[in-house]
């Protein structure tokens, strides 16, 4: 479990709470602003927001550089290095919605049940707890949905692929190879 807590404690360039709150009330303004204005955007967690018309803790600072967000990508080099480490930390790593014990999505659950039935020890990381991780992973894996299964540090597939491989026996073979190496 060590790595999942490490991921959640990532030193983020801005408050993830503010960011997730802003995601809960998606304001097209933020997207338009990111696209049209190349100023530095800062996410502040204070209540004395000098720009009251943007009431989701997103303030644009002209001139004064507070934060580090310039581009759209959620995958900064730091996150990438961390993900490199996570996917190789164990033979089998599953990025899913919910936890091993309480999956919060049918597809994630299918993969968990398959891995459990094969008696494979795997690390399960809940991407619902960290929106930055969630978006970063989509870029990192070049895969837009979850669950995402990594075997031996390599992206294996999502739910459909895992189920198909389980039916054909390919998954068991690959896992055996990974466990023995």
């Amino acid at each position, binding site marked *: 479990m060590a790595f999942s807590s490490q991921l959640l404690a990532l030193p983020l360039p801005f408050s993830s709470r503010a960011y997730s709150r802003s995601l*809960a009330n998606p304001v097209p303004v933020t997207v338009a602003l990111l696209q049209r204005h190349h100023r530095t955007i800062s996410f502040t967690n204070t209540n004395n927001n000098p720009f009251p018309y943007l009431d989701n803790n997103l303030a644009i600072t002209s001139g004064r550089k507070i934060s580090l967000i310039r581009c759209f990508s959620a995958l900064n080099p730091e996150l990438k290095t961390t993900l490199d480490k996570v996917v190789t930390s164990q033979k089998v790593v599953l990025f899913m*919605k*919910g936890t091993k014990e309480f999956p*919060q*999505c*049918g*597809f994630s659950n299918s993969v968990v049940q398959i891995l459990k039935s094969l008696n494979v020890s795997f690390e399960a990381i809940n991407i*619902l707890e960290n929106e930055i991780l969630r978006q970063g992973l989509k870029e990192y894996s*070049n*895969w*837009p*949905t979850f669950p995402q299964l990594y075997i031996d540090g390599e*992206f*294996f*597939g*999502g*739910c*459909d*692929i895992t189920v*198909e*491989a389980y039916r054909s026996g390919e998954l068991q073979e690959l896992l055996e190879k990974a466990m023995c190496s």
Partner: protein
Amino acid sequence: MASRALLSRASRIKTKLEAALQAALLEVEDVSYQHAGHASVKDSGATETHFNVKIVSSKFEGQTLVKRHRMVYELLSDELQSGLHALSITAKTPKEAAVNIK
């Protein structure tokens, strides 16, 4: 082309995949109702979020499953960014599909 608002997501998906993959068989099914209680769907009240897609196309020859799925995802990247939440993809080549039917 009719305006986006008039075409349902299912028909948009169908059009995009048909054009790019020249599919011998293409089925698109909206199964959002099966996921209505989902953690991330519940609150937003979104519709047209989960689809089953079945494609048989010769363009999948020689491609691993991951590559085939990625092809489909790339073709539908607009949809994925505008509220499409998940896709269940069955991507077969004509040979594989014929084998399964027998």
